[in-house]
């Protein structure tokens, strides 16, 4: 992607390896998260996502490899790097007897933020994650989703340039997911480098600009969402009369198989979105009453399933 000497704006990790005893958690992983973009970190459970994020967050020293946070080496200058990193762990980890406002305030103090500006910043973040009404509630009484949002606000308190989010969407209701998406896109638009690890692949299609696929501790694929969408994908088609749909597809020479979903649909592999549009037009023109015509899976999910990753 870029040479070691070239300045790279964002987060760059090259050749990261980390072993826990006999387990090689991460082996020669590579990740580049440019500023202004959202980078998805995708992989099965145990692929090394959390370990990689811990290394990137400067909590864990890699056995080998280099990390640059906005050009800073966190191994050599952890304080300078940490001032620029916001990290949201996959475990909730809230101080249960403190209120949301107190938690954000004390985090600001830990980041040595000037006292005068701190209350305004706390209010701003409480508004951003929609917790303003619950600001005086103890974290104990917050729901899981609310704690998750508080955790996000906590990672943002010092306005970091690089944001590392480990499973930020888990436990969020649909409304919160939409607002998370909005927040992350907003941060990317502000020029932050955002790294998101998640299992909810359909969600990432909407959030991420690029994806890094990892499996068994290795980076197996790097692609942008545009590339993923262009690589061809399966479409699920349903019609009022399934027989007519099947007959028309056969006539058009499109190979199809019975869909995997619960509803009576067929699945068709298409190379590009243009081909999809063409097929839909053909079907409608032939008088097939199409009720649904949509990608069977998200672009990133398609990539992920194509990787044939193994879980461990």
């Amino acid at each position, binding site marked *: 992607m870029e040479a070691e000497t070239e*300045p*790279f*704006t964002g987060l760059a990790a090259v050749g990261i390896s980390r072993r*826990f*005893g006999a387990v090689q958690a991460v082996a020669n992983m590579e990740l580049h998260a440019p500023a202004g973009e959202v980078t998805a970190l995708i992989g099965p459970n145990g692929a090394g996502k*959390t370990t990689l994020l*811990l*290394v990137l*967050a*400067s*909590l*864990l*020293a890699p056995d080998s490899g280099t990390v640059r946070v*906005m*050009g*800073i080496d*966190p*191994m050599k*200058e*952890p*304080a*300078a790097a*940490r*001032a*620029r*990193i916001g*990290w949201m*762990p*996959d*475990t*909730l*980890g*809230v*101080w249960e*007897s*403190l209120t949301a406002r*107190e938690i954000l305030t*004390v*985090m600001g*103090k*830990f*980041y*040595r*933020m*000037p*006292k005068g500006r701190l209350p305004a910043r706390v209010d701003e973040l409480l508004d951003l994650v929609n917790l303003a009404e619950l600001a005086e509630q*103890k974290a104990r009484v917050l729901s899981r989703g609310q704690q998750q949002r508080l955790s996000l606000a*906590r990672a943002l308190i*010092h*306005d970091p*340039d690089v944001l590392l989010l*480990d499973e930020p969407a888990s436990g969020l209701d649909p409304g919160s997911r939409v607002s998370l998406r909005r927040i992350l896109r907003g941060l990317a638009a502000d020029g932050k480098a955002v790294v998101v690890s998640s299992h909810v692949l359909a969600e990432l299609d909407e959030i991420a600009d690029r994806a890094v696929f990892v499996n068994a501790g290795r980076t197996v694929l790097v692609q942008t969402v545009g590339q993923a969408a262009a690589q061809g994908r399966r479409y699920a088609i349903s019609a009022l009369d399934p027989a007519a749909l099947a007959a028309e597809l056969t006539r058009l020479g499109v190979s199809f198989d019975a869909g995997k979903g619960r509803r009576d649909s067929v699945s068709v592999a298409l190379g590009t979105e243009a081909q999809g549009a063409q097929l839909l037009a053909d079907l409608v023109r032939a008088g097939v009453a199409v009720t649904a015509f949509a990608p069977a899976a998200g672009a990133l999910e398609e990539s992920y399933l194509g990787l044939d990753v193994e879980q461990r």
Partner: protein
Amino acid sequence: MTIMENGTGPAPRTDAGPSGLGAYAAGVWAVVGMELRQRLRARGWYIMLVVWFGLIWLVTALTWASWKVQSSAQGDFGGVAGSAANGPGPLIFEAVLAFVLLFGLLVAPALSANAISGDRAGGTLAIMQVTLLRPGQLLWGKFLASWCAALAFLVVSVPFLVFGILQGGLGAGHILVALLMLAIELGVVCALGVGVSALANRPLFSIVVTYLVVAALTFGTLIAFGLGMMVTDGTVQANQVYYKNSYVATGPDGTVDPSQPSGQPELPQDITDQNDQFACYGPMQDQRAPRTDRVAWLLGMNPFVVVADAIPYPDRTSAAQQQYAVGAFESISQGARSAQAGPEATYQCANGKVAASYLSPQAPLWPLGLGLQLLLTAGVLALAWRALRTPAGRLAKGTRVA
């Protein structure tokens, strides 16, 4: 700490605060404030305070009642006992002090030993580590907060110590020195607890280990001292002891009849030293004696010895006063100091000298004991500091950083 300016990123927005020591202290205070806020909201702490108050009250009341019974019994016999004549003050003071120290040693690990392991289990430790907080700030903050929580127990017991002082026989200096030493001992245990909690992965484990360390200091030092005394069995140059009052023949009516032969051997001629009880005579010989002076430092590490030895008591070596210790703490102090003095000073007729039954105030043992306690604490905290450093190089087996 300086944040390096660098070309690629925007200027850091978080380094606007004071720098150097002020910034370090500010971080420590942020941790202390957060910890105390959490502790003040925990109900268990208040329950423990109430139970504590009740226990100390009970100890005071029972001590006072027992003194009442004793003094009235002595009054019936018409005797004026020394301790009764002094009033119940010293008795209550010592009883309360001993119990406060005992309970304090029991409570302090509970207040401190899950400080960091609890955060680790709750997933909040890594969140603090990823900020600009440094391991030292984290340790200082956690330690100061747990010490404050422990000192609250001391504050609750102050009225009872004051009550003891008001009963007479003691000065305000006693209470100040005693409180200071208790506070220091609680601080040592809290610091040990925080240090152990940084090394352990589970709160239960760190609490148990801290209790074991406290037990080692309280009981282990006694056992080690006893065993060490046997190991360091040495010799001392001493001659024979003559007991002057070992045997007195009494007549049928209980009076001493000087005309009766008492069976007491004649006072030997070659006396090297004597007082009204003992005389030393004869040639010097190697006598086996435990070299307690070599293992007295073990005894010195005992929290009870440190507190007892630090509290001042009058010099009783002058002939006008009774030549034995009054009160438990003074006895502990004297015992420890005679162990420190070793057989040269305490073995009867060592070097032909009569051993004093009461040691004059010499080099006290508590600075050595407290120094060793602080050394141990500093060692544990240094290991704790290493364990909290990030980016972490090595992890304990089964540890998850986040």
